[in-house]
């Protein structure tokens, strides 16, 4: 049986993907939207059981409910709990074939256009002991604190850089967990915050930050700026953290170390775009540290280097949920125009209204990055024996040896060390190994882009043979 054909397949139903699907289907585009979670809304609009909602989570939860309701009432076909494990171009037909794996979903769907909205995840930074149970990301801490009201330990160190560190610390402190310190790599003064371009135009962001900050100060939790985790200790579980002062490049300052007894370390160094899908289909990519790593090239209408392929939201660069919503809406309009559902004039008119607002959200993202930039010193935390690839347990030493023996790209390193070949398919280690290879090559003289990225091939996720067999050619 030939799979059902749509005008548009949207992959990812977070803020960007949901808005894209709603906007496109409202304009007459026959749309399918797929998400691996059992609900739409992504990480930002995670469902929170009513029993666990607080004043701090209610506004976002209500927004999430409204988004889900609009998606449900839209004409879009929604496949939830469904992984996309491959996307293939059928050249004869000129359509994309999207391979699905889900409980009650077809194995394939076909579409003329693709909107890829894979979101983002915590950008890992490797330090000695970072693989110990009890060391978790800010994302994990926020999910457990907000969605389940479960404290991941009793005594926590929260470390890293950026707004999520503050937010995770505040949410954990409100659960009553003891936070021994919050280490923020950047050093900010009230003046640097108030003079940051455009930040005063976002009172809600400032208010949220202030609320978080008050949650910490009212509990006398030290917010240590210019400090960082250096090492985690423990055998079967983390029991101690070594922290120290870092300079403005993020390198540790010897002689400032302190040991803290903790049973959980929450670390967050900003987010990195999930670009598996655009890379797999062959979109041209560029490395932009300020956007979180590798991002697809796009024009102002969010078109990639491939015809009829769009990438929106944080998977095209870390700019936040409000930006993702706007980009989703814009892509829906542009797709509708490309399929002839809207006149060029109408597309221009609708786009202009959205791009005006996008200027504001992008400026905010830039400002936040300038306050909490990625620091070169973060890559110096790992020791020779520290595993950089958590799945294959390839250490920094092995990666440096590979480079010394002639590896020049991420794929070279992958072939020699197996870094990036485990269950997570390189999602966790790619940025860490990228930094390590850059350092080992003395990348000052080399364009960072020349190191490249891991090649991405289907299946995107570990896939059972049964699922693969079901997708066979005669099905």
């Amino acid at each position: 049986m030939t799979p059902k054909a749509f005008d548009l397949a949207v992959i990812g139903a977070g803020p960007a993907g949901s808005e894209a699907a709603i906007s496109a289907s409202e304009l007459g585009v026959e749309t399918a939207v797929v998400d691996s979670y059992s609900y739409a809304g992504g990480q930002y609009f995670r469902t929170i059981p009513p029993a666990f909602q607080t004043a701090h989570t209610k506004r976002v939860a209500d927004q999430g409910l409204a988004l889900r309701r609009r998606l449900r009432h839209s004409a879009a076909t929604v496949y939830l709990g469904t992984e996309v494990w491959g996307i293939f171009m059928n050249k004869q037909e000129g359509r994309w074939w999207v391979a699905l794996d889900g409980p009650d979903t077809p194995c394939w769907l076909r579409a003329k256009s693709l909107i890829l909205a894979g979101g983002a995840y915590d950008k890992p930074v490797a330090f000695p002991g970072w693989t110990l149970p009890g060391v978790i990301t800010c994302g994990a801490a926020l999910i457990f604190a907000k969605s389940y009201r479960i404290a991941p330990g009793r005594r926590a160190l929260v470390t890293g850089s950026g707004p999520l560190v503050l937010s995770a610390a505040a949410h954990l402190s409100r659960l009553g967990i003891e936070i021994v310190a919050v280490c923020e790599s950047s050093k900010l003064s009230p003046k640097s915050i108030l003079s940051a371009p455009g930040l005063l135009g976002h009172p809600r962001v400032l208010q949220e930050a202030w609320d978080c900050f008050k949650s910490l100060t009212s509990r006398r939790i030290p917010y240590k700026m210019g400090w960082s985790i250096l090492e985690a200790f423990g055998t079967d579980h983390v029991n101690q953290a070594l922290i120290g002062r870092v300079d403005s490049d993020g390198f540790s300052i010897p002689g400032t170390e302190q040991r803290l007894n903790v049973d959980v370390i929450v670390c967050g160094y900003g987010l990195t775009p999930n670009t598996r899908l655009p890379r797999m289909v062959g979109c041209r990519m560029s490395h932009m540290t300020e956007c979180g790593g590798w991002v697809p090239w796009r024009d102002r209408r969010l078109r990639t280097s491939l015809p009829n392929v769009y990438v929106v939201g944080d998977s095209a660069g870390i700019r936040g949920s409000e930006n993702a919503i706007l980009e989703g809406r814009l892509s829906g309009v542009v797709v509708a125009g490309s399929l002839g559902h809207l006149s060029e004039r109408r597309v221009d008119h609708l786009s202009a209204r959205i791009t005006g607002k996008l200027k504001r959200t992008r400026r905010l993202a830039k400002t936040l990055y300038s306050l909490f930039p990625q620091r070169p010193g973060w890559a110096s935390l790992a020791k020779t024996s520290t595993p950089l690839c958590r799945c294959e347990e390839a250490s920094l030493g092995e990666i440096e040896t590979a480079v010394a023996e002639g590896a020049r790209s991420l794929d070279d390193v992958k072939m020699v060390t197996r870094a990036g070949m485990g269950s997570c398919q390189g999602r966790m280690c790619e940025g860490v190994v990228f930094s390590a290879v850059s350092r080992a090559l003395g990348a000052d003289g080399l364009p960072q882009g020349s190191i490249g990225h891991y090649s991405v091939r289907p299946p995107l996720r570990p896939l059972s043979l049964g699922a693969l067999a079901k997708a066979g050619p005669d099905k």
Partner: protein
Amino acid sequence: MNRPNRQTDSGRLSASEHSRSITIHFDGHSLGAQEGQTVAAALLAAGITVFRYTFRYHKPRGLFCGMGVCYECLVNIDGETPKRACLIKVRDGMRISTLLDE
């Protein structure tokens, strides 16, 4: 080593009217859990933090990213292929075991 009851009092998932208490089994021990929780949430609430041991160096691993990206929280569930504990919801009577390095 896994220690029981690491959950703080104010973080405790009370058996409220909104979620039903169920029983799950981890490595042969019975644990209370709340319907709607993920396996990872139920294990963490019970103080269990080691979910698997690595294949190469037999090191303990547990929850890391919490959102299905890192595959560190793989556990055996009801005799199926290893699953990510942070994504799978608990069911009454579910049998979970540590993913060993064998």
